[in-house]
């Protein structure tokens, strides 16, 4: 008796070889890993690297915001919140959109608080896209849009932007990329990685095309607060655009809260309801500690934020002036915290330049090609790093170029 039981058990336990990757879906397998990853691994192995490769502020979250987070923990606020996020936070977001852009978003059903803007972007793509729908994505752009669209079953349609247009996508380019299958357009200005911004008139021309062709717009405006020399135009503030656009924004860049993971989406009731449906199953709600911090940020954070923006602006002039002096042609980025110099004069590819600069002079930058094919020949240099480090980095880049 005992003998047969034992043999049955061992038959169940005898391990069967698993084919590598067998359990990973084809969809995921087809998605290339982020090009940034490679550089990240290289940098990890080295000491004394000055990094201009970072996509987040070098400031620590302002103290009053951290204090609010700590206090919320002390008071025991560790529960779920409404799927949409704390009502108080949504009301504050709504107020800020009215005050800054004159747009009226109902805090009850037109704003969704998410775990970072990344989640909001993913929700937007999934909420909008049917299988086979095309989504127009101007490049160079943030690395997640294309894979997110693919994962949502859509087809990303990249549109290159050029230095001669100051890396703005034109209405004309968008119009030419539209087909019967086009469902949505992605805008992300101020832009990561180029630092490009859109003028109101550029957006108005795009709005006309969008309107005429009846497509949706997903506008990632997480760098809106980091705009220098001029005010940011929110896309949904243009006539008729609120109903057909989803505005994505968050606290990572404006209030140096990257690791607290807090973003939001604002849009029509229908679109927000659709996104909330996915959000409630995937995420349930954004972390309450971060939401409490965000409430404090919106209530009392303007002073600290403006201080950071002024500091970024000084560094921006420092790095753009410095790069141009070294003969690396760099257009004036008017938003975010990136400079996007051309390295075409050196004859190296972006990857070669970035790879050798890291090995030979220990400065980390990100090759422009990571952000789309048209980013080839450029580098993304983040100036979200201290003034002293920027000066040192420029000197090292100079030494590197002289050796070429």
């Amino acid at each position, binding site marked *: 008796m005992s003998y047969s039981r034992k043999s049955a058990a061992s038959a169940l336990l005898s391990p069967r070889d698993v084919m590598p990757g067998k359990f990973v879906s084809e969809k995921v397998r087809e998605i290339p890993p982020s090009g940034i990853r490679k550089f990240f691994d290289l*940098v*990890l192995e080295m000491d004394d690297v000055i990094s201009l490769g970072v996509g987040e502020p070098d400031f620590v979250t302002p103290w009053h915001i951290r204090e609010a987070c700590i206090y919320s923990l002390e008071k025991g606020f560790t529960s779920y919140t409404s799927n949409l996020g704390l009502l108080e936070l949504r009301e504050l977001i709504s107020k800020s959109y009215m005050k800054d852009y004159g747009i009226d978003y109902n805090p009850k059903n037109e704003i969704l608080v998410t775990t970072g803007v990344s989640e909001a972007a993913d929700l937007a793509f999934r909420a909008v896209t049917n299988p086979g729908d095309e989504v127009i994505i101007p490049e160079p752009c943030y690395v997640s849009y294309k894979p997110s669209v693919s994962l949502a079953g859509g087809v990303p349609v990249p549109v290159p932007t050029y230095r001669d247009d100051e890396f703005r996508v034109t209405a004309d380019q968008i119009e030419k990329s539209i087909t019967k299958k086009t469902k949505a357009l992605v805008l992300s200005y101020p832009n990561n990685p180029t630092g490009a911004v859109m003028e109101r008139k550029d957006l108005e021309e795009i709005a006309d095309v969008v309107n005429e062709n009846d497509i949706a717009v997903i506008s990632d405006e997480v760098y809106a607060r980091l705009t220098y020399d001029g005010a940011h135009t929110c896309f949904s503030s243009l006539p008729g655009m609120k109903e057909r656009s989803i505005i994505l924004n968050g606290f990572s860049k404006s209030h140096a809260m990257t690791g607290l993971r807090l973003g939001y989406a604002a849009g029509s009731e229908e679109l927000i309801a659709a996104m909330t449906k996915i959000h409630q199953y995937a995420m349930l709600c954004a972390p309450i500690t971060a939401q409490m911090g965000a409430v404090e940020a919106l209530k009392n954070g303007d002073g600290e934020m403006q201080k950071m923006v002024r500091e970024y602006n*000084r560094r921006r002039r420092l790095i753009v002036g410095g790069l141009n002096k070294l003969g690396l042609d760099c257009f004036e980025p008017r938003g975010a915290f990136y400079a996007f110099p051309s390295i075409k004069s050196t004859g190296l590819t972006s990857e070669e330049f970035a790879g050798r600069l890291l090995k030979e002079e220990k400065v980390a930058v990100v090759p422009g090609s990571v952000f789309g094919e048209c980013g080839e020949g450029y580098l993304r240099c983040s100036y979200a790093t201290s003034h002293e480090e920027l000066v040192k980095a420029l000197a090292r880049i100079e030494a590197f170029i002289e050796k070429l």
Partner: protein
Amino acid sequence: MKEILEILESNPRIALKEIATMTGSTEAAVASKIKEMEKKGIIRKYKTVIDWEKAGEEYVYAIIELKVALRSRTGYDAIAERIARFPEVRSVRLISGDHDLSLTVRGKSMKDVAFFVAEKIATLEQVQGTVTHFVLRTYKEDGDVLFEKERSERLAVSP
């Protein structure tokens, strides 16, 4: 102008060339602006915040509160100026509340400070009374937090 002042306030040793790039101006323009502000007394002096304790120097600080009786026709300014002339006195402030003036005094030892207050300050004709608080520890000085510097632990490369 405010921009230049903000830069200098956080780092007075910065090169003119860098201020010029950061403010989108020329070196000559920045230099003349700074000179003008120095002349006008907007820029009072360039100084260094030092953690003397770390440097091994034992300084003793005390906050002294004074009650002052004004003499006819001379205001607080006159007595404040007399007190301010002593190099031992690091700061003099007119304050509201129970006392009139608040000083910070620095000396080599507690005895040093105590004698200074007893002999030089308490003996002034207008001074009616003094309260001396010895500083046991300084946590923040002139906007500079004297704890370990905060470092954000960022990844070296991120999207």
